[in-house]
């Protein structure tokens, strides 16, 4: 069964791996280049790489869902469209093995490749993590580390299972892109800020690279209060703040050291989601005919 599954998926897998390899080559060049110029002041460093870095998150956000659509969605959908699943399911191979082998052969290479790319990105982007947003924050968080591989595993499982359920490649692709974006946005906005309790500082400043999740104002007693900027009229802001009773600013933030903890937690969410999808697929495969 392994050979058959590989022969069926061969072209898509090789194209997928080729695509990841091209992106990886670009990131390896970045890593080498960054390593050669360090140490360097933050200003010139930012100037040197800001153009390049503006493209990196775009590519990294798109890659997992692209692989889910083109390597994952057709795994079962194309067979169901062409009727060849009937051939596979009426040989001396059980349904469960047919399903699992196809998933593993198609899914493992792209997941492994993207995990490696994510680790390479973490190396290359690590010294640059204060140029764009913090590396804990969208879109730099999604562009590096082990989450890349787990996003890919999720998008792949979504595409493959959608193919079993909607029985068409185009429909499965549409479900993949919709489902992936939905989970990514929801997790990034609703879940990620709460992976840990933010640290608090009343000084108003924090190290570069931290993720500020909340900035606010305190009165003289240290109680949080609102600043009504609209009421200031022609007064300067510092005077206006003082008039309103604001004594200081505070910041709640996640220190950059939490990067790998956050990566693990977010990976766990996507692995669980992928496992749920595979469970649905294991149920669906018993019903196809």
């Amino acid at each position, binding site marked *: 069964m392994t050979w058959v599954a590989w022969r069926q998926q061969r072209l898509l897998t090789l194209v997928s791996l080729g695509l990841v390899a091209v992106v990886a080559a670009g990131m390896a060049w970045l890593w080498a280049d960054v390593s050669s110029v360090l140490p360097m002041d933050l200003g010139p460093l930012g100037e040197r790489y800001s153009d390049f870095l503006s493209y990196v998150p775009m590519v990294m956000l798109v890659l997992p869902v692209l692989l889910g659509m083109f390597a994952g969605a057709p795994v079962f959908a194309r067979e169901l469209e062409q009727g060849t699943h009937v051939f596979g*399911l009426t040989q001396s191979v059980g349904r469960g093995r047919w399903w699992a082998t196809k998933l593993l052969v198609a899914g493992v290479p792209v997941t492994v490749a993207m995990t490696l790319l994510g680790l390479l990105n973490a190396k290359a982007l690590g010294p640059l993590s204060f140029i764009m947003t913090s590396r804990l924050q969208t879109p730099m968080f999604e562009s590096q580390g082990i989450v890349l591989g787990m996003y890919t595993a999720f998008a792949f499982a979504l595409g493959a299972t959608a193919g079993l359920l909607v029985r068409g490649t185009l429909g499965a692709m549409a479900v993949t892109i919709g489902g992936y974006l939905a989970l990514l946005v929801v997790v990034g906005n609703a879940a990620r800020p709460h992976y840990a309790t933010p640290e608090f500082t009343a000084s108003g400043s924090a190290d570069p690279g931290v993720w500020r999740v909340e900035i606010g104002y305190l009165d003289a007693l240290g109680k949080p209060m609102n600043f009504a900027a609209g009421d200031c009229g022609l007064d300067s802001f510092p005077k206006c703040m003082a008039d309103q009773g604001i004594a200081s600013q505070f910041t709640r933030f996640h220190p950059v050291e939490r990067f790998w903890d956050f990566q693990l937690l977010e990976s766990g969410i996507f692995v669980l989601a992928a496992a749920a999808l595979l469970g649905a697929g294991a149920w669906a495969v018993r019903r196809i005919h």
Partner: protein
Amino acid sequence: MDEGSAALVAAGLGKRYRRGWALEDCTFTLPSGRIAALVGPNGAGKSTLMSLATGLLRPTAGSVEVLGRPGFLAQGKPLYQGFTVQEMLRAGRMLNPDWDDEYARRLVDEARVPLGARIRTLSGGQRTRVALAVTLGRRPEVVLLDEPLADLDPLARQEVMQALLSEVAETGTTVVLSSHVIADLDGICDHLLLLSDGRVRLAGDVEDLLAEHRLLIGPRSLEVPPEFVVERRDVERQSTVLVRGLADLPDVEVLDPTLEELTLGYFRAGRAAAERGVAA
């Protein structure tokens, strides 16, 4: 395989889809070592029965069992389009521990299909021969072929049937062949299973069935005891009546029906019964 034992047994078999019963209360036994025709109009439940027998579908009611190693050629002959013929044979080998590679290759050679050709470039006849080789390569004891001759030209039909028959004659394999074109099966099948509207209307040895039936042609006033009538058609002044178990009637032309006349009579009777059922 000993003559007279069963190759396929169905008991109270039924399958319901969302739109209704595709197959209902089917009980029959197909003897082994025979070539059985599974006939019925489109939508009679032939493919559903095949899919149930191969385990592709699960029955809603009853059971069906293939006794012996099965081989199945599905409708439309699904093969991996991007594979070469050689790779398709390799797939057969990889997916079946009891694969006979030499035999499968011989079948492809005999069909003069080049091993390096891609499946999608083959003609309908070649495709069918490759599909047949992949099906028979498992050395099945019971072969189920779902509309294997559809989409073939007459010459290819004949060649495919010849190839199939010479193989099963040698090995004593049981063949179940579905078709809605009766002419393809006449003179080839020795057992008949007739489905109409999801029910078994007729089952048995073809020779026995033909011997039991008569076609009566007479005036419209012709009176036939209704218990013998399978189907009656009245056209202008003439009536044609298909009867079962009635030896003779006076003043009537009595003919032996052909297999096609016999099955068409049952198809029409089945449809008429279904229409009455809907009206009632």
